Structure formats: C-alpha cells, structure tokens
C-alpha cells in the first residue's frame, strides 16, 4: 500500500511542471477573448460581494457594512474554489478521455491539473479581493501572518475532495447532476452570507460541516488575526489522512477508470 501511494506521489511530483503549465494554459484559454483576462476572477467576486452585501446586509440589518463586506468577501472567495472543485470533479476524466485512452498519461495527472487550476484561480481572486479590502482595513496585512496553516489546509482539502469525487463521479454519472444541488445547499447552510449565530439552535449544522470548518478557519484567521493553531493542526492531520485514503482508492481504481469512459 505504501509503495503504491508513493508511486502516485512520485508521478505527480515528476510531472508537476507539465500540469502546472497546462493549468495556467486553461486559465489563459478561458479568458483568451476578454480584455481584462484573468482579472475577471477577482472582479467577479468583488461584484458578487457588492451586490449580495447590500441586499443581505440590509436583510440581516448589519450595523457595520464594511465589516460585513469583508466577512462576506473572504467567505465567498474561499467558498468558490471548494464549490468549483466539487462541481467540476466528476468531469475530470471524461473531458480527457482521448488522452487517457491513447497515451500513457495517468489519470492522476488530470486531477493535479484541475487542482492546480483551482488553486491558481483562488490565489488570483484572493489577491485582488485582499488588496481591495486592505485599502479599507489596513490591519488585514498583519492578520495574514495568522493564516498560512489554513491556506495549506484549504489546498490540501480541495485536492483529496476532488480526487475522491472524480473517481466516484466517473463511475456514478448521476453525481454530476446531484452535486450542484448539494453545493447549493451547503452554501446556504454554511455561515457565509450570515453569521453563525443566525442559525440559532441549528448551529450544530455548521459544526458538523467539514467544508465550513476549513472555510471558517481561513476566513476568521484573516479577518480576526487569530492563528487557531490547535484546530488548524487537527484539520491538517485529517487532510493528510484523507489524502492517503483518497490516493489508496485512486490506486485501486486507476486502471478501471478507462473502462467507465
């Protein structure tokens, strides 16, 4: 088991420059015909924050709109790669059927490529949103030092989640239809648009939501400057265990994936 996991990690490491490049190429391709290019990643988040912020800020009768915009902005910018990773994962292998059937590129390559694409998109959007909020709240610059562990947790979380869903989604094609519904529900049930206290006696829903836990730790560490080392470490251990588990599942399915395409 250890050897097979190491083989997958070794292959992913050896091909890292290629999947990182093809992920950049994917972003370039997506924005090839736009004037602002990949700046749209940040602009779209900022526009969403602006629109939703005014509406929900009024609905929830927030007392400080600036704080609410920052809370919502970081929540959304962290939620986006998680949501996109979940929704896109079932398509990873089917969109690369030709390469999988006719070349020696292993399926994990395309998972790494999609992961790199999500991470690159997240970093660009985050940087833009962060710089805009920094002009209103300069203290955020220092808070950033409390966040590295939670950044790592987010990217690790996206990786194993995407790997597992891509394998399941290739076998059970219904998942592709089901996942957008699940992500919509998760979004509405997670305190992103609203504070956790608004859930009242249903607050436990957020406590048992692993996606929200990853999101919350990163968002709150940036906004409040709290490092949450203990919780972050627990999440890190959980992520590493899930990475090993997902690679183990992958290794068992690696040669079968091609038959589902």
């Amino acid at each position, binding site marked *: 088991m250890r050897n097979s996991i190491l083989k997958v990690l070794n292959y992913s490491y*050896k*091909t890292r*420059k*290629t999947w990182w*490049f*093809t992920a950049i*190429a*994917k972003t*370039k*391709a*997506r924005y*090839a*015909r736009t004037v602002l290019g990949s700046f749209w990643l940040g602009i779209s988040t900022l526009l969403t924050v602006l629109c939703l912020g005014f509406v929900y800020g009024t609905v929830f009768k927030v007392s400080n709109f600036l704080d609410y915009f920052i809370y919502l902005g970081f929540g959304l910018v962290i939620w986006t790669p998680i949501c996109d990773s979940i929704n896109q994962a079932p398509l990873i292998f089917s969109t690369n059927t*030709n*390469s*999988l*059937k*006719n*070349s*020696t*590129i292993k399926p994990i390559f395309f998972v790494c490529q999609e992961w790199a694409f999500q991470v690159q998109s997240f970093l660009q959007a985050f940087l833009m949103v962060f710089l805009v909020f920094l002009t209103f709240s300069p203290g955020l610059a220092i808070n950033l030092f409390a966040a590295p562990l939670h950044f790592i947790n987010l990217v690790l979380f996206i990786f194993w989640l995407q790997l597992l869903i891509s394998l399941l989604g290739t*076998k*059970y*094609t*219904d*998942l592709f239809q*089901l996942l957008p519904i699940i992500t919509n529900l998760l979004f509405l049930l997670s305190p992103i648009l609203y504070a956790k206290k608004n859930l009242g006696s249903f607050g436990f829903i957020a406590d048992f939501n692993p996606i929200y836990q990853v999101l919350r730790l990163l968002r709150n560490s940036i906004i409040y400057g709290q490092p949450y080392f203990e919780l972050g470490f627990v999440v890190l251990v959980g992520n590493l265990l899930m990475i090993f588990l997902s690679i183990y599942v992958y290794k068992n399915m690696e*040669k079968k994936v*091609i*038959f*589902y395409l």
Partner: protein
Amino acid sequence: MIHKSNLEDKPIIELKNVSLQIPLMSKSDFSLKRKIIKSVTGGGFTRTKDNSFVTALNSVNLKVHKGEKIALIGHNGSGKTTFIRLISGIYQPTFGSLKISVKVYPMIQRSFIVEEQLTGVDSAKAHYLMMNNSLKGFQSFLEDITEFSGLGDYIFLPLKTYSEGMSARLMFSLLTYKNHECLALDEGLGTGDREFYDKAQVRLNDFLESSGSLFIASHSTELLKRFCMRGIVFSGGNLIFDGDIKEALDFYEKFYS
C-alpha cells in the same frame, strides 16, 4: 535486420497466456439508484448480465527482443489497438503474465494536450514538458517544429484557427521529433496536405528506422514490408500467426480470402 545475438538476449516484452477482458458497463452500473437498491436488498437485485465483458485479447503468448520491428496485422476490431494499449501500460491484463522492461511509447489517435483557444507554441510547450519534465532545450525544439511543420508565424495563433491540414502537420511534427526506445504506432500518422506528404515521408522513415523496437499496426502492406521483419496476425482477440513478415502477410490474405 535484427542481430542474431539480440534474440538470445532476455526479451524486452514477454506475454504468457495474457488475456484482456473489457467490462461492458451498462447504464445501471453507473446508476446511484441501482446501487442504493442493491444495498438495501442485500444484493438480491443483482443481474448477472450486468457483469458481461468482451474478451479483447485471448491467451496471447509472445516474446519480443530488443530491436525487433513487428507488424500487427488484422481486420478492424481484431485486437491490434488493444494490444498496443496493453504493451504501453494503458490497459492491464486480466489474466496471464506480462513482463516489459522498456518504455513503450504509443501513438494512437493523438490529440493536443491543451485547449484549442491556445496557440501552437502553448501546445508545443505542453508536449515538450510532458516528454522532458523541463523546458530545457525547448527553444530549439520549437524552432524545429515551426520550420518542419511549415507553420511559420501561425505557430503563435490559436489552434482553433488552424485548418485540418495545419493541425495534422503540427501534430506530426510534435510526435516525430524525439526517437523512442520502443514505439507502437497505430495506423499511419496523419500528415495533412499533399505538399507536406513527401517531406513527412522522409521524416517518418527516419523516425521509424531510428526507433529501438517498433510495432506498427497498419493495413498498408507496403509500409509493413518496408519497416518490419516479423508479423503477427490477430483475429477476434487471438494471436493466430507469428512469423516472418512475408509469411504473415500471405497467411492473412489466405485466411480472409
């Protein structure tokens, strides 16, 4: 010709009673609904016909030595492409033993790695990275590709603006740039327009001659005779003949006449 001493060496590829069964996935195999029903009925709802499969290769025995150039002969669907996928590591045998000590490079219906909104340069870069895991030497690679394909400045344009011929020329140039220890080629490589054809033939000849070991699946008797000294004939997933190329081609003609 292969040197006699090579035949005495340990084979680079050895198949012993290798069979490959490809499962036929019915719609219900992909259905969450059926999985849930199966789980609540304790599997009582299982249908045996869901577990059907196709035997794509059946008890194949073969030894290949370093430097051998082998023709894969057979009708469409006889098992040639499956065999190439098997020795390249894309498929794994269901039964039997497969030992391979070389890296087999498959050339089967290849497509560009990047999306068509990207340029020929991006495509070349992705291809180069895939082969070398680094961009060292990329510039000379790009110059060679641009010159040989005759694309000129079109190399900087998105792939979607290319004609079919231009795409084929670029693909051919990318695939035949580097020699391989063991090459498995399925049918001819598309070479695009007529003007490019002669140039491509010369490069293809050099490319095939310089590959260490070679498998070619083709319906072109001329191509097979020119490059191969051994032929194996497939029919319905079975290897039905293995021998000298001329004898193999004669056997194939008689078998289907």
